[in-house]
Every structure is written in C-alpha cells, then in structure tokens.
C-alpha cells in the first residue's frame, strides 16, 4: 500500500513525487510512456518570468528559485541558464499590449523594466532595428527540457519513489478509502490517495473516476536551427506571447511561441502545420535578423494540457475522497517545481506558502458539486 500514487510523469507529477518521497511518504509514480516525454520534455524550455500569465507570477517567481538549484538537487545537469529575458514590440498596438502586461506583472513583484529601442539593442545587440519598445527582466532564463526526464528519473529513484514507466493506467477502482490502480502492462497497486497528473490525458483519467474534466490540449510547435556562432544572449519574446527564442550553449537557436500543430491524446502530436511554422519563423526572423542564412534542422510538436480558462487545475477532486488533480497549462513547466512543492506540502499536512487549492485553480470551478454518483466503481 503506497501513501500516494501519482499518475503522470510530467514535471508536475515528478516534482510532487520528489517532495513527497523526500518527506518520507511512500510514493508510486505511473507514467504511460517515459518521464517528461510529452509537454514537459518537448517544450522550448523557456523559464522567463515575463512570459508567465499574471495570476501565475507569484508561483513562477518562487519556482525560478527552485530551478536555480534543481540540477544539483536531482543529480543531473538540466542546463538551467539565468540569462534574463527581453520582450519586444514592433508597432504602437504591440507596444500598448506590452506596457499593459508588463505593468500588471511588475505590480506582482517581477523586476522588469520597460526600455526604449536603443537600450534594448544595447542589452541585446541581436535585436532588429525595428523594435519600437521592449521590456527587460534580468531574472529567469531557460533550461534544457529534453533533459527533464533523465534528471527527475535519477532524483526520484534516489528519493525512493517506485517508478513504473511504459505503464498506461487503464483502471482506477475504490478499495476502502484508497484505490487500486491498474495498468496496461499488468501493474496493479494499492494507494491511500491518488493524484491525477496526466496532462493532456487528464480527460481520460477523470472518466475512470466518473468525472468529466474539461481538459483539452494544444499542440505546440517548436523549431531548432543548426549550430550558429553565439549571437543571442537572452530569452527573446514578443509582446503577444507568440515568440520565444533563445540560443543554447551548443549554438542552436530554439524557436517557439505556442504556434499550433495538430494532434490528440490518442494519436499523439501528429502534424506540423506549415502556415504556423512559417508564421513563427517569420516573427523570429523579424526579431533576430541573424537567423538569415541558417538552416532549420527540425520542428517538433508537443501536446500541452489546456483548460477553458487557460488556468491550472489543482485540488481535491469533488466527490472523490482522497483523489486529487494536478494539471498545468501553458508555462506549467516554469511553475512545475514550485507547484509540486506546494501540492506536496498540502498532502503532508503543512500550511502551503501560497494558496494552491483556491478558486482560480480549483477543479470545482468546472465540476458540479453533486458527488454521490461519482466513482460508481465503489468496491
């Protein structure tokens, strides 16, 4: 009997499993493929504070503190680089959106300044001359998301978490106050409480408990160039949130910004949409002219969980005792380590540093409060 079974090995599931196990709980983590092999492993690695939604800023700020020491803690270099970010606007309308958004975020405690074009190009000489207005934040940066799974795997095993990979959960049944969780590859385990942390697959997991979570997905496209000489030294983004760009230590430039491809949880991410690739790359080239002449080596896709209000789903599942949901949305990667910690604190009976099971995140905002017919699978 495990204290907690976490279903889903993305950054939310991994981070909370780590905290719970380090605090002495017995934890099982079940993952349908491999740790951080979906959104948490294929996102563009952006950890810039200026690109986080205002409501998540307090969480992102504290999460960045955790990112600074995460490699050390997990025992594998996840290449966190605190290079700061610069967000640009090219015309009056974009500048207006930028001012408004940055003001809201500055009010929440991010040390970010609106700067003019000249100053922007002094800070980041790779920026094009057409920049009209920019915002600069020295904190935050990026990590190598591809290393997330490896780093957490090492950390979780050292912390004593029981890992089941390639173990797609197919059934969740009641067993007294607890649960029996069964997988397609024959694993069956008992746990006092369960945490659904399945990202884009949360909808299917909810159905196993008789609940319809309105979890959808987005299919984000990310592209990478071949190695280039060092030319960009900050995370560069756009006022509308449609561009994230940074140059890795290895010289490649990663280009994202949430432009959409096609796919679904059943097929996985399936199709790069050329018009969105073209749009994303045009915006990147407009911003960083040095991209001229390079080659694109690869564009890839990742399913990202999405909710109707684009806010996370975190809290007890209404009507199902001892069952919780822990779902991120856009910038879930940035906030993951800290949200995992808060979540673990609550499960461990500690007072969380910031509220987590509160209104903007709580799943009850989407589920009707009648809970009796839930989990008809009651043993």
């Amino acid at each position: 009997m495990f204290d907690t079974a976490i279903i889903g090995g993305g950054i939310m599931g991994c981070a909370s499993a780590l905290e719970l196990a380090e605090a002495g709980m017995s934890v099982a983590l079940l993952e349908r493929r491999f740790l951080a092999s979906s959104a948490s492993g294929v996102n563009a690695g952006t950890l810039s504070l200026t690109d986080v939604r205002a409501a998540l800023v307090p969480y992102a700020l504290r999460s960045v503190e955790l990112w600074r020491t995460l490699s050390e803690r997990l025992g594998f270099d996840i290449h966190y680089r605190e290079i700061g970010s610069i967000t640009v606007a090219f015309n009056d309308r974009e500048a207006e959106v930028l001012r408004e958004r940055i003001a809201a975020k500055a009010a929440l405690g991010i040390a970010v300044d609106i700067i003019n074009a000249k100053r922007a190009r002094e800070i980041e000489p790779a920026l094009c001359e057409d920049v009209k207005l920019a915002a600069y934040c020295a904190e935050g940066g990026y990590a190598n998301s591809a290393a997330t799974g490896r780093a957490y795997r090492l950390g979780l095993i050292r912390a004593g978490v029981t890992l089941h990979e390639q173990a797609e959960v197919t059934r969740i049944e009641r067993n007294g106050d607890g649960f029996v969780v069964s997988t397609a590859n024959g694993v069956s385990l008992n746990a006092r409480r369960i945490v659904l942390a399945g990202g884009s697959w949360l909808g299917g997991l909810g159905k196993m408990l008789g609940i319809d979570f309105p979890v959808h997905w987005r299919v984000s496209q990310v592209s990478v160039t071949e190695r280039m000489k060092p030319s960009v030294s900050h995370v560069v983004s756009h006022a509308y949130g449609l561009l994230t760009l940074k140059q890795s230590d290895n010289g490649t430039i990663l280009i994202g910004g949430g432009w959409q491809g096609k796919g679904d949880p059943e097929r996985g991410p399936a199709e790069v949409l050329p018009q969105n690739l073209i749009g994303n790359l045009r915006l990147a080239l407009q911003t960083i002219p040095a991209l001229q002449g390079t080659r694109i080596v690869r564009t890839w896709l990742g399913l990202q969980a999405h909710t109707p209000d684009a806010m996370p789903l975190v809290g007890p599942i209404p009507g199902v005792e001892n069952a919780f949901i822990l779902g991120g949305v856009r910038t879930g990667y940035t906030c993951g380590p800290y949200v995992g910690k808060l979540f673990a604190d609550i499960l461990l009976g500690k007072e969380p540093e910031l509220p987590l099971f509160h209104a903007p995140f709580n799943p009850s905002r989407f589920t009707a409060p009648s809970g009796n017919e839930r989990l008809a699978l009651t043993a």
Partner: protein
Amino acid sequence: MSACDVIVLGAGPAGASAAIEASKAGLNVVLLDAGAAAGGQVYRAPPGSFRVTDAEAMGPDFAIGDGLRQELAASPAKCFFGRSVWHIAPGFVVRAVFEGNTEVYEAPTLIVAMGTHERVIPMPGWTLPGVMGLAAATILLKSQRILPGENTVVAGTGPLLAAVAASILKGGGKVAALVELSTRMDWVKALPSLISRPDLLKRGFGWLGELRAAGVPIYRGHALTAITGDAEVTGVEIAPVDAQWRPLAGQRRTIAADSVTIGHGLVPSTEVTRLMGAKHEYRHEQGGWVALRNEDFETTIPNIFVAGDGAGIAGAAAAALRGRITGLAVARRAGRKIDASRETTLRAQLGKAERFGHAISDLMQARPGLIETMTPETIVCRCEEVTRADLDSAIRDGARDVNQMKAWTRCGMGPCQGRMCGEAAASLLAAVQGGDRSKVGQLTARPPLRPIPYEAIVGQFDYADMELPEPQPG
C-alpha cells in the same frame, strides 16, 4: 501550387518505374527527386555535362539506368529534379525546396520511393576524412568518376564490397584489402536463394576473380576495429569475429591505407511514412523498420503507397518491379484500364527477384556483436559527437527508447537527423533488452525532412503585412 493525380517521391528504379507505369496508364504524374537525374543511388547517372564515350566501361548498371532514364523521359510523367521534399501534409500537399525556394505540389495519391541509406556501425577513427560509406564510394566511382583514394581498404558486408573493390581496380586505384564480416560459409548457406539470379551471381564471381588476379588480400570473417591516423587516414586495424560478429580479443592486424570505404548493409528510408503516421514493423532481414503494406503496396494510410527498397531491402531489380506494380495498381484503382496479365507476370518476376534480394539483404544485416567495435571513446553521433560512453551512461540512467535516448544525449539531434547514428544507438539500446530492436522504437519523423535554408521556409515577407494571431492569454 501544382495539382496532379499522383506524386511520386524519389526517381530511383522504384519511383521512376512507378511514374512510367502510372503515367502511361493515363494518370497525371509528378515525379520529384533531389538528384539531377533519375536513377537513384544505384543507377546514379554521371553529371549531365559529362559525355559517355564508352558505355561498356561504365558497367552494366549504367546501361540499365540509362534505359530507365530514356523510358521515363519518353513517358508522360512530369519530372522535377533538384527538389528536396521537406514537408507533406495529409491530402497530400508536398513542399519541396528548389533553388532556395519552396514549391508546393498537390495530389490525392502519393507513391513513396525514397530508397535507402547506409548503415555504418562505428569504430574508432570513422570520422576521419578519407573514410566513407560503400554507397559513397560507389557514387564517386560510377557517377563522379573519381577514386575514393590511392590505396583503399574496402570493409563491411554484402556484395557491394566486391563491387566497389573491383571498380577501384578498374579505375586504376589500389585496394589495400577487402575485409568482410561474412564468412565463406555464410555465402554458401545463402546460395540456394541466390541461384535464382545466375546473372548476378556470375557478376559477383567475376568481381572476386578480378580481386584475386590483382592480388588483393581478402579477409573474411573479419571486422574493422579501428581506423588510424591523426588528421587523415593512415591505416586500419582488423580482427577476426565470432558468429555474432563480435571482434575476438588479441588478434589484431594492421593494414596501411590512405582511405577506407565501409558499410554494414542498407536501411530503408522511412521518414515519409513515419511522418505521415503509417504503421511500421521491424523486419531484420529487410533492413529494419518497414511500412506495413498490402499487396498493392498501399500503407496503413489510405492512398500512400511505398515502393522499392524503402519498403524493405530487396535490391534494385525488385525495386523496379515493385515500382511498376505499384504504378499499375494505382492506375487500376483510379479506374484506368491496365493490362492485367502484365501485372501478373510482373508479380511473378518480383517473387523471384525478392527471393534473391532478401537473401542478399539478410547476409548484409549487421549482427549484434558488431556493436563491440564501438569503444567507449568512439563517436557514435557524428553531428553532436556523442560517444558510446555517453550512450551507455544514458542506458544506465534508464533510457530504453530511441527518442528518449535522443532527448537525453543529443544523439541524432544534429543535421543528419539521426540517419548516420540511429542504427548504432538503437542496437545499443536493444542489446540491453534481449536484442529486440522492435522494443526500442523508431525515431519520430518531423519536418523538415532535411535541413532546409531558413529563407526557403519563410519566403519573402513584410512584417507590416503579417497578420499575427490573437495575443496569447497574458
């Protein structure tokens, strides 16, 4: 945008044959290929600016390839060369780069005939200039008409070894040694399947005769365990192997050379069918992962067909026959009248050609012990310089799948997109999972299918005219 009935990808024997048949049956066919002329790698033509003065000196493949090119030119198929396909959308919308710009082609049916690429299981020194694949040496010799070096070691598996060595001699070069992993007994065992093509068998014996006459040392049952030299190749080290091709300890021999050409069999190029989400299965004797297909060579994605070695290694003769059958099948299904008896005859010929081709392919496929030529320091991924030790370390940390290995180590993330290192990395992963390659999966295929110039994707644009989507939630 250019619309037609069928787009054929690849103008090797399979693609060219499919285009000929489908177009002659009345379909509007567009054929796209990255090369300058039809023929693929096996029948790669000399540059168009070269004048062939002695067809016989060019070898029998030249005549076959030339015949194919003439037949294609006389057919109604519209051929576009120098096109590097980089994206295909369902439906099908094909994007290809030509002279730095993207062109778009559209058709309801796709015939994929992308051929193969070569497998090379690494050994120390294989990144030195002067080391190249057997297929590369073939291209230099047959098409470019240049020697791969002055004194060349020819090593690896399969009939290409003797073919390349004989071509080097004929071109006036020296073969330092032929180092083959298979033993005479391996060939004897394959003989019952090989006698279905006495002509090709005779050609093979002819090459061996030429090598013997020239006094070329032949080492069978040997692996190349290292290539030596600081800036360029100075020689090789070889060792006998066991039945699984594991080099035996302590029995090394060195051979001086200034160049090395090496190959361990061919791998079907499946990037298009993977990109499109078709189902594949692992078939060791056919070179690896191949798209599942029905008898008309249609994949699990309706209206995508595969032809040639890209559908499983079976050799050039089988590739051409598969192409013709696919071309006819596509025409038949489009309601065109085709000669049914001809299709029957072609299918019978294909059975015979495949028997030979599969036997050769089986003989060529790398065996599991060969991974031991990779020492811990050996670079496996040439682009990202990921060593075997790096890969072993990832495996110790729990990597079990090729995509996971790629994410964890960068092996396969560089400009070759995993085509050079993928086989070696997958073999290492399989070795810790009971040798089962099907368990370690396939690399996910994503566009662009080759590195593509940035400008070829974005084209000309003015930011002021760009319609950006709505801002992301702030």
